[in-house]
């Protein structure tokens, strides 16, 4: 039984790979996991809906589910937030390891590194 987070990822990938909105049954069939219950997939889709990752539309008596944004759009939103260089009043939602610097700066950093390398190798 895969963990819930893992399952959300798999379901999302199924929806991303599909060319049209899918029903719960279709998602379940694409997942290729016999142990998985229909209600579990429905719960996962509900959770993804609550996270605004999935939208659902009524189709007759059933619901069809589609990604709220394409995989590319999700990736670019993530990267955009991750690489956002804006400072100032921005809230500290993410804490980076390092920001990019200009070439002259990089040169100075490398010089400092050489010094550290020679000190620590002694």
């Amino acid at each position, binding site marked *: 039984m895969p963990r819930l987070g893992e399952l959300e990822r798999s379901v999302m990938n199924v929806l991303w790979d599909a060319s049209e909105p899918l029903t719960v049954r279709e998602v379940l069939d694409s997942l290729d996991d016999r142990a998985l219950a229909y209600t579990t997939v429905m719960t996962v889709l509900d959770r993804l809906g609550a996270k605004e990752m999935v939208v659902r539309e009524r189709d007759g008596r059933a619901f069809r589910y589609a990604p709220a944004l394409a995989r590319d759009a999700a990736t670019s939103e*993530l990267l955009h937030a991750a690489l956002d*260089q804006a400072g100032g009043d921005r*809230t500290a939602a993410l804490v980076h*390891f*390092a920001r990019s*610097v*200009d070439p002259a700066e990089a040169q100075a950093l490398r010089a400092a590194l050489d010094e550290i390398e020679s000190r620590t190798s002694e």
Partner: protein
Amino acid sequence: MTPVLLGLIGLALALPVPALLARIAWPLLVPRAGIVLWQSFALAAVLAISGAALSTALWLVTDDRLTWWRIALHLVILGIGVLVWARFWWAAWTVWRETQARRRRQRHLVDLLGEADGMAPALRILQEQTPIAYCVPGMGSPRIVVSQGTISALSATEYAAVLEHERAHVRRRHDLVLEAFTVLHRAFPRFLRTDAPLVQSKIMVELLADDAARKAVGDAPVARALVTLAGAPTPAGALGSGGAARARMARLQDPDPRNALASTTAYAISAIVLVAPTVLLAVPWMLHALDTLTQR
């Protein structure tokens, strides 16, 4: 006299003092004490300005002959004092709410797009060639995000250094430090503030996380990882300030960056800045006010 002095202290702590402090480098030598120092300045400024407003307001109505202009002025100045605090709490609320929302969104995206690593539950690896390493801090469910590009650009120990650095941010709740400075930054009106406390505190938490990383893996891997990742081009072509990277390298160059004198000085100044105005100015005045009020 008290209100004027308090007001002056408040204004000085809000603008000229931080501007001067930003020019001297020694708070960066002692990041932990430096953060406390900056915090105490900003907090003391808020206290002094609202204290000045409150004491002026009270002084205006403690006179025996109550005229209409005294009462009107009393209300206006009292209003300013209340406004300072209202602004402070409003800033705290909006910063907290925005940060939570942005982090939640990041977590959702990262969990769906990144692969979990079996060894570290908080780690997510993105299939992306751009070198990226950051953390999404937060209560209970922090995430450390690295891209495939980061992993392939670094050696095993350098990679360990990056993870250790990010773990230190998460473990020591550096996000709370930065949030507090963002709140104070936003609480002051634009013409009454400098960017220095926020900018410097960002550098200081990096220095602290580097300290944790070098303790775990040694100086050279941290420095190499920093040079590799800071030197990597970003697709947007945007360049960040090099100040942080330079300050971090400078600290890494020092085999033993502890500096007892500088940190004691910073702690002592923090205590004085916070306690002294309250004790020297506000307490005598409050006693006097109490005296006047009880005599009625």
